[in-house]
């Protein structure tokens, strides 16, 4: 979706402000939001692509005005309600008012903690041969799906070169909407800055994205 989350190349957000000796969390609740998200994901309530899609789907003014963990909280609430794990009556009461919905992998317990500390596995067997190989020139498609995609707007319509082949991975565009893993080949595609930003771009700069095969067409 063409949301405000897709920020690459936007102007007007000002300077980057590094914070010396930044704490891991600025508020205690941030940690609770983080671990609720991780735990409910690990228990099978949703996948990572759905959690990203729900944050992207926040109203633009809310997305921009909210801190990182606030976005996580808002996205998590919406996601759990839409998937039926919590209902409006629970939220209104601040307690479990309705019966629970079974989780795919059951309750998240101490035995599951080790598992969430390592990233999930996203590589899959290839359903078909790769269409592209390192060195191939490709164009990022001019596509504008209304749902989740990982092809940033700034790359669409532009020509780059395949640099690496990462094998087949879960396709976020499908997984985000519970339409299956639909594994696709994944490539690092590198673009000259002038191709993306025009003749005034930094001549020493190149930018790469990791692009799934359906995002690309041969040139």
């Amino acid at each position, binding site marked *: 979706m063409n949301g405000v*989350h*897709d*920020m*690459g*190349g936007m102007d007007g*957000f*000002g300077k*980057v*402000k*590094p*914070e010396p000796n930044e704490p*891991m969390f600025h*508020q*205690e609740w941030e940690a*609770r*939001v*983080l*671990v*609720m998200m*991780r*735990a*409910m994901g690990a*228990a099978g*309530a949703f996948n990572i692509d759905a959690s*990203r899609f729900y944050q992207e789907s926040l109203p633009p003014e809310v997305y*921009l005005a*909210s801190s*990182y963990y*606030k976005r996580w*909280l808002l996205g*998590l609430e919406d996601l759990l309600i839409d998937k039926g*794990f*919590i209902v409006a009556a*629970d*939220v209104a009461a*601040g307690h*479990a008012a309705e019966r629970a919905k079974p*989780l795919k992998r059951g309750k*998240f*317990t*101490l035995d599951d903690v080790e598992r969430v*500390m*390592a*990233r*999930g596995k*996203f*590589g899959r067997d290839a359903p078909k041969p790769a269409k592209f190989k390192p060195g191939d020139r490709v164009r990022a498609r001019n596509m504008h799906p209304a749902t989740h995609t*990982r092809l*940033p707007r*700034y790359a669409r319509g532009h020509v780059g070169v395949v640099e690496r082949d*990462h094998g087949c991975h879960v396709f976020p565009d499908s997984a985000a909407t519970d339409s299956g893993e639909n594994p696709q080949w994944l490539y690092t595609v590198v673009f000259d800055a002038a191709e*993306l930003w025009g003749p005034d771009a*930094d001549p*020493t*700069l*190149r*930018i*790469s*994205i*990791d692009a799934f095969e359906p995002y690309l067409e041969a040139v």
Partner: protein
Amino acid sequence: MSSDDHHHGDHDHSELSETELRVRALETILTEKGYVDPAALDAIIQAYETKIGPRNGAQVVARAWIDPAFKQALLEDATRAVSTLGHVSRVGDHLVAVENTPKRHNMVVCTLCSCYPWEMLGLPPVWYKAAPYRSRAVKDPRGVLADFGVTLPTETEIRVWDSTAETRFLVLPMRPEGTEGWSEQQLAGLVTRDSMIGTGFAKTPGAPS
């Protein structure tokens, strides 16, 4: 308070309390419904606080600086190479290490959300997740580096890696001069988080940190 909070919502005390109450209510609901054990949630926080952080990445970098075979293995398949180091926590698939040289500087961003190699660097800092970095890194990386007080020679090539999939990138910074004969542990102490994102350099011996 995070830097983006200063300019937008969440700065009012009553609003903060409202968020806190909302978070507590959600945890109460999830607990009462039997979805999560709160002790398991505490254990995840504790694990983040004790097991992950930039020191993991720093150990990997220091090893690469003193061991050419490890460095080559790291650049070929970082997940496999890191997993051979017993003292670094488990690492996920598809970790990619990219090497900074006098000719080429690498920098990592996630323009779409905030993807970051947690197992190597810990939880990302606020600036990495905020709009100024996410918007500008792909278009004006030299301007972003200036915000960090970092200047590159004008002829140095810059490569920005936008983390748009489940690959994760670790920058292998250049080894500082004047560190000949240093031990792996001494070298690890020079490797900053920012040097592994590409928004800084490793510390120089004797320079103020």
